[in-house]
């Protein structure tokens, strides 16, 4: 009698399937090339950003009262205003970078700025004046915009790229019928879990690599202040991304299992693609709208973008990311449970498109 082999239990099976996904993807030239291009793009944007910030435009200054004479002319674009209140108003509205107003201190003046001490203005006085910051916690709106955009793009790109990859590999197995051999050996949930795990590892590795390249780039180009400010939101982005991606991966594989040909794939997964695109557009167009971003930070599909943005802006309480994470995990568990049933039910039905209800019936 021949040796009896015992099929692998859940996790060893998942590992085996995940390993195959990984090695297949890592050998694919198109994957390697597109990853290299993405990393190069991140590096270029960091370097371009540093060059742009190294050549700042001339600082604009509002000056109130009879102190104009003590400021070196030519170094600043000076707007003269009648009193301190008017100068402060211009700073608040962002029309000027800083204001210089009369004061009874030793310097004789006081510098008003929005959120950051304007070093060049302070240096212009022989006696260092006091600096009054109107809103010390507020983030620079331009940087906030780019941070929001950055999280939006990173999530959008990774979810779309790897989501589509998972969907394609599900349909590939269905289209070339290898799935029938696989299912005779391995339970569908092992196949699904392995597929999600393998592709998730790649997605996480790519995100981590992007984060590392961006971080090293920021430090190397002397922008470490920005890095320190953005650190906590990046950490939360990664945590929320991990669960958000697993949720999307389950959705992609379940919907892909409903069709039998690559040609039908795009239309089948389009609802999932919408779920990925809507948060991206919302963050692009409504990143200044606190209400929209607050709602986004709790909705599972947009939490990986919305919550890190709020953390960066300082508008989230310490417990809020934890609640968003709990909501996301609960949703992920639910979607994976339903998704794996749809996946198992859809796999062996070839021909036309399978209805979700039929697939659930098994």
């Amino acid at each position, binding site marked *: *009698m*021949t*040796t*009896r*082999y*015992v*099929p*692998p239990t859940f996790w060893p*099976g998942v590992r*085996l*399937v995940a390993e*195959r996904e990984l090695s*297949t993807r890592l050998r694919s030239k198109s994957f390697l090339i597109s990853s290299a291009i993405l990393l190069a793009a991140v590096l270029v944007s960091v370097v371009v950003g540093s060059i742009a910030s190294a050549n700042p435009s001339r600082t604009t200054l509002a000056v109130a009262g009879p102190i104009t004479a003590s400021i070196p002319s030519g170094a600043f674009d000076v707007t003269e205003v009648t009193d301190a209140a008017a100068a402060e108003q211009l700073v608040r509205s962002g029309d000027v970078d800083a204001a210089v107003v009369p004061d009874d201190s030793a310097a004789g003046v006081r510098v008003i700025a929005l959120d950051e001490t304007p070093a060049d203005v302070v240096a212009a006085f022989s006696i260092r004046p006091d600096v009054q910051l109107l809103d010390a916690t507020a983030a620079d709106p331009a940087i906030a915009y780019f941070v929001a955009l950055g999280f939006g793009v990173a999530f959008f790109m990774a979810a779309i790229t790897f989501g589509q990859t998972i969907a394609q590999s599900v349909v*590939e*197995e269905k289209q*070339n*019928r*290898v*799935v*029938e*051999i*696989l*299912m*005779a*050996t*391995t*339970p569908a949930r092992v196949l699904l879990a392995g597929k999600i795990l393998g592709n998730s590892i790649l997605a996480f590795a790519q995100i981590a690599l992007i984060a590392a390249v961006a971080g090293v780039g920021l430090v190397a180009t002397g922008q470490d202040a920005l890095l320190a400010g953005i650190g906590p939101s990046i950490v939360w982005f990664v945590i929320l991304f991990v669960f958000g991606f697993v949720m999307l991966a389950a959705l992609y594989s379940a919907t892909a299992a409903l069709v039998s040909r690559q040609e039908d794939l795009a239309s089948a997964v389009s609802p999932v693609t919408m779920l990925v695109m809507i948060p991206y557009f919302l963050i692009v167009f409504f990143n200044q709208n606190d209400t929209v971003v607050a709602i986004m930070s709790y909705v599972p599909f947009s939490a990986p973008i919305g919550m890190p943005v709020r953390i960066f802006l300082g508008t989230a309480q310490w417990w809020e990311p934890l609640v968003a994470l709990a909501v996301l995990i609960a949703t992920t568990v639910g979607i994976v449970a339903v998704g794996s049933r749809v996946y198992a039910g859809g796999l*062996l039905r*070839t021909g036309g498109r399978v209805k979700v209800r039929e697939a659930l019936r*098994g």
Partner: protein
Amino acid sequence: MLRIEGVTRRFGDRTVLDDVSFDVGGGRMTGFVGGNGAGKTTAMRIILGVLAPHAGRVTLDGDPLDTARRAQFGYMPEERGLYPKMRVREQIAYLGRLHGMPKSAAEKSADGLLDRLGLAERRNDKLEDLSLGNQQRAQIAAALVHEPEVLVLDEPFSGLDPMAVEVVLGVLQDAARRGAPVLFSSHQLDIVERLCDDLVVIGDGRILASGSREQLRARYGGSRYELQSAGDVGWLRAEPGVGVVEFDGGYALLEIADRATAQRVLRRAVDDAPVDRFGPVLPTLTEIFREVVR
């Protein structure tokens, strides 16, 4: 012995298998024949647990099948499928590992099979770079890599050239010789006729006939006898209870109603002249198949 008992399966309103029962004996090659849409593939999928039956069960040596037991099966689905972009040896070994083989054993088994199937030189090629016939051989290797204790093969010979048929046949017979029940379907009745020990005929979701090849031939043999004699057999025309269908010198094809008459005819023939051949005319599987599916 693999036993299928009272299996029924519906798709929507359509009953694809209706109370299907048959046995696949250990160490025997069992041919599974039937027209298109007769239910062969569904039955095989149910045996493998890929589909669940609505009624009935499948047992191996009396035990109901579970996932672990089914992982010992070798399966070749009708819809061929392997990963087109994966290297041949790598994917055969991967499938072996999914069945629970350690990596080294899986690779050794893959190498042995590919060598035997004449694919040793192509083992590091991608599957899609092989000819269809060679892909088919790789598929056989995929079904056999884990040294299965039961083989279920849907159309294993389709698309193979005669030499490849011999090779595959040898591999399957080895498995049967080790005691494995081997169930295979085929449309090529001449191949089935030559290969199988037992036969199961299915039509419209019902088992129309099953049993050993000899039993079936005898059962569907009817009442025709052939006689080949050295002398003239013209005397047969005068024999009571004998109808002459064909007559040509020393040869006659006869219609004989009962065994006693047949024995009497043989004795008379032997007395008359040396007899080269006398016996019932056994139908070919093709004829039996036509008969039962009618």
